[in-house]
């Protein structure tokens, strides 16, 4: 009898499959597949189809590559100052040199400078010296460095063939340091330190918001009060207070790291509020009750059953928070409580450029670091956008 019943169900089932709704392939010759695809494959597949997100992802990858191999990629050292080239403008890369006999040869080079000192205006004026050819090349010998503080080397990805020749592709700063080099080195700090803070406030925000929204009641009320206190507090006093309270013997990087961490300990509130709101709505959903009836513990309910519904939101927050952290660093540097020289970060570079002299006479000091921040921020956002769209299994 049992078998019989089962049979009848299966019969209809297979009949339905035979005589289902009519479908046709998207394009001629493509096979139709409705077979199951793993969730990650699906996300990835969707992501790949979003061109903007892919480009953004590639740029992020590139930025991290630059961060990892900064020493090798930079033509010079970030601290090497050449007084004779203070405020030297950027040089254009040129490809051909004209020989005296009128023919031209392919030779990668930049043109040197003619420098004059104006004693009254207290500045050097630079004129491109067409006669001075500075040949440049790839994998050239240059100033010695230690890759990751371990591997000593003198090979640079790009640089002047004669290490003493001036090559300032993005110009020089007020101490005659190469902006390109400093930008490359700055990538390392700017793209790494903030992430710890982002991760911390993410975890705190999610966990505390979950607990508040899941349990409700007095737990929720208490947590809400704490959130109110913390987020109503202006951040500048906190930064200043902390900056002054941290022992001086710590290196600037670790001081900044610690401040970042502490501030992210306080920066979780907005995410927590959002997560809580969603939890309040979701905790009474049937599928949560179903999971509870299945015997799931509260932790499992929170993390396995409810949280995945928030992935898209959380992803968006993360991708927004990373660039916010990069920008925040520059603002803190401005207040003198962020990173400081001799550490090189984009924020420090921008802080250096934060004066009328630069705006008026050396805009490259402002433009390139700003560009770096803008590109990073845009990349993170477009990539995050794409990820979010792709992670939504119900979006077509």
């Amino acid at each position, binding site marked *: 009898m049992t078998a019989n019943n089962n049979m009848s169900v299966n019969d209809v089932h297979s009949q339905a499959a035979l005589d289902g709704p009519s479908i046709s392939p998207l394009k001629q010759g493509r096979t139709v597949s409705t077979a199951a695809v793993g969730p990650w494959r699906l996300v990835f597949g969707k992501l790949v189809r979003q061109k903007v997100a892919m480009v953004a992802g590639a740029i992020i990858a590139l930025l991290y590559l630059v961060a990892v191999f900064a020493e090798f990629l930079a033509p010079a050292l970030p*601290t090497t*100052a*050449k*007084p*004779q080239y*203070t405020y030297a403008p950027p040089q254009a890369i040129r490809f051909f040199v004209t020989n005296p006999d009128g023919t031209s040869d392919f030779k990668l080079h930049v043109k040197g400078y003619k420098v004059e*000192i*104006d*004693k*009254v*205006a*207290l*500045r*050097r004026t630079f004129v491109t010296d067409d006669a001075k050819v500075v040949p440049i090349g790839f994998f050239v010998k240059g100033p010695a460095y230690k890759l990751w503080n371990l591997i000593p080397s003198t090979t640079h990805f790009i640089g002047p063939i004669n290490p003493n020749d001036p090559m300032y592709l993005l110009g020089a700063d*007020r*101490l*005659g340091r190469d902006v390109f080099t400093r930008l490359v080195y700055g990538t390392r700090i700017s793209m790494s330190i903030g992430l710890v803070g982002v991760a911390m406030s993410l975890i705190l925000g999610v966990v505390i918001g979950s607990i508040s929204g899941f349990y409700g009641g007095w737990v929720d009320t208490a947590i809400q009060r704490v959130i109110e206190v913390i987020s109503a507090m202006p951040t500048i006093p906190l930064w*200043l207070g902390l900056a*002054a309270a941290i022992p*001086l*013997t710590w*290196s*600037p990087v670790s001081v900044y790291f610690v401040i970042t961490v502490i501030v992210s300990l306080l920066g979780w509130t907005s995410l927590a509020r959002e997560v809580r709101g969603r939890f309040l709505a979701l905790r009474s959903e049937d599928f949560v009750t179903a999971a509870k009836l299945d015997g799931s513990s509260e932790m499992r309910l929170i993390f396995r059953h409810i949280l995945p519904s928030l992935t898209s939101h959380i992803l968006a927050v993360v991708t927004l928070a990373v660039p916010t952290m990069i920008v925040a660093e520059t603002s803190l540097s401005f207040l*003198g409580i962020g990173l*400081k*020289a*001799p550490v090189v970060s984009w924020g420090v570079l921008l802080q250096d450029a*934060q*004066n*009328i*002299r630069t705006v*008026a*006479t050396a805009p490259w000091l402002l433009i390139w670091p700003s560009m770096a921040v803008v590109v990073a921020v845009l990349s993170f956002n477009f990539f995050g956008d794409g990820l979010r769209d792709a992670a939504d299994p119900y979006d077509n």
Partner: protein
Amino acid sequence: GGYNEAASLKEQAAKGALPPVTNRLPENPLVIKPVESVGKYGGDWKLALVGGGSLSHLFRYQAYEPLVRYTPDWSGITLNVAEAFDANEDATVYTIRLRKGMKWSDGQPYTTADVKFWYDTVLTDKRVAITGQGHWKTDGKPAKLDIVDEQTFKVTFPRSNGLFPLQMAWSNNDHTTRCPRHYLEQFHIDYNPKADEVARQRGFQSWIAAFQSMAGFQDDNSFFLNSSAKPCLFAWKFKTAPGENTERAVAERNPYYFKVDTEGNQLPYMDRIVYQMVADPQVLLLKTMQGEIDMMDLYIATPNNKAVLYDARQQGGYDFYTLTSTEANVMTFIFNLNHEDETKRALFRNRNFRAAMSTALDRQTLIDAVLVGQGAPAQPSVKQGDPLYNEQLATQFTGYDVDKANAMLDEIIPKRDDQNFRLDDKGRRLTVIFEIDQARAIFLDLFQLVIPMFQAVGIDAQMRTMDRSLWETRVRQGRSFDATAHQFGANGGVAAMLDPRYYAPTDSNAFYAPAWALWYVDPTNANAEEPPEETKKQLELYNQLKAKADKAGQQEIMKQLLQGAAENFYVFGVSQPPDSYGIVKNEMKNITKIMPSSFGWPTPAPTMPEQFYKA
């Protein structure tokens, strides 16, 4: 005689709102010879202040009216509020005569009673406990004040105090001309039994706080705060004082000002001084370029800004004036000779160590990069050409020689670790943290270049920048900092004697030896430390110098002091400070084109702003 006055005052006098000008001026007004020409009345002097904590700069523009003031070239002093200022032979008794009929800005007479009031309530009143005015004391005890009559008083020191007149002229050093008895009485319990009540009405806890605040002598910044009600002797008095408005301050001409020009016109020529409160120097720079500022050098006149200011001369309608430097060096490296850490203290006190560090510096590179080539390698010293010039002090260890520096260090701290940094006697890596006030932009630039130079000789030098107040707390009050950098001091003349901070640890500005300076001021202080013999000798020389009443005698001793400084080699520097600059609107007249730059000679006040005028 027939004195002339500004139209607005004339009007008021005509209406009877003011007494006639003759009655407002003292019987014997101070006659000022204009720098170029007799001016005309009118116009605002537009200035700016950056940040709230910089009110002490007001002394430079508006409030330099001591009994005696410095001459425009800072070669000495000249009479100002005082009609006569005489010393006895051994500089123990000074007799000072005020101007008869001289009045505060509210028309009340200014007499010796005001001086006496100050002496009683500020200098010697333990309750009020306002500090400073060290030149009124010898051996920590105040001089004796004798009032002879309404105009004359005598100051008697138990011991010779030859620097007294020079110090009286120092910026903000002369309380006696800024303490209106008739106004401040109400806040002092001895003069007004209800002072406590008055204080509470104004929001103060007690009469002490109220009196301190109203007198404004407790620190430089508070003298002007909310001071529009306080009478003064200055050319301009506040109508809207700083603090009464946090955005701008306005001072108007004082109808009772005691100076006239050679043609009998009562000074000042200009109607008002208008200060904008600016939060960031960059805005001020833009405002200057736009022509919103009439005459300024503070905050904006950095070497870096010169190029943009130069380009904007046309649009801003201004030109430059020259500020001759009075500082001992562009930047002085200071090691903490009283360090808490014994090993470090011993090392830092080793003159050869400091000499080696000095030798490791490539000064020409620093000068080229940061000073655009302006300047010459030198140690903190009196400048060449000054009668006090000491060649050894100025030039020793200025040659750049890494090998030599290494060799010198090898004799002291030969051991190195795997990263090639030197180890101290205890085997720790020798890390020297330079703590720098982040507001000093030039220091930051210099240090970016200096640190690799120190590292090249195996010293793990690091820089920590911090906010000014934190820096003050750590460096001025702390003993645990390794090293720092600072400027100021003096490179010659009168200033070198008044501020010998890098030549002998005479006061708390000698950051290299705070404990020794403390010992000099107060040997019984718990934090004081007896300095070694050679330093004690320096301090003794300074005592002798102070006791000399004549200039020649003072110079003789100063020379010995400088030679001692060369031998001690407490600190080292980078370069002789190049001349600086300021901007002045083309329409501003009677401006001295070359003047010293200093706080003690409060630039440009000794060039007499009261006779500035706008064409």
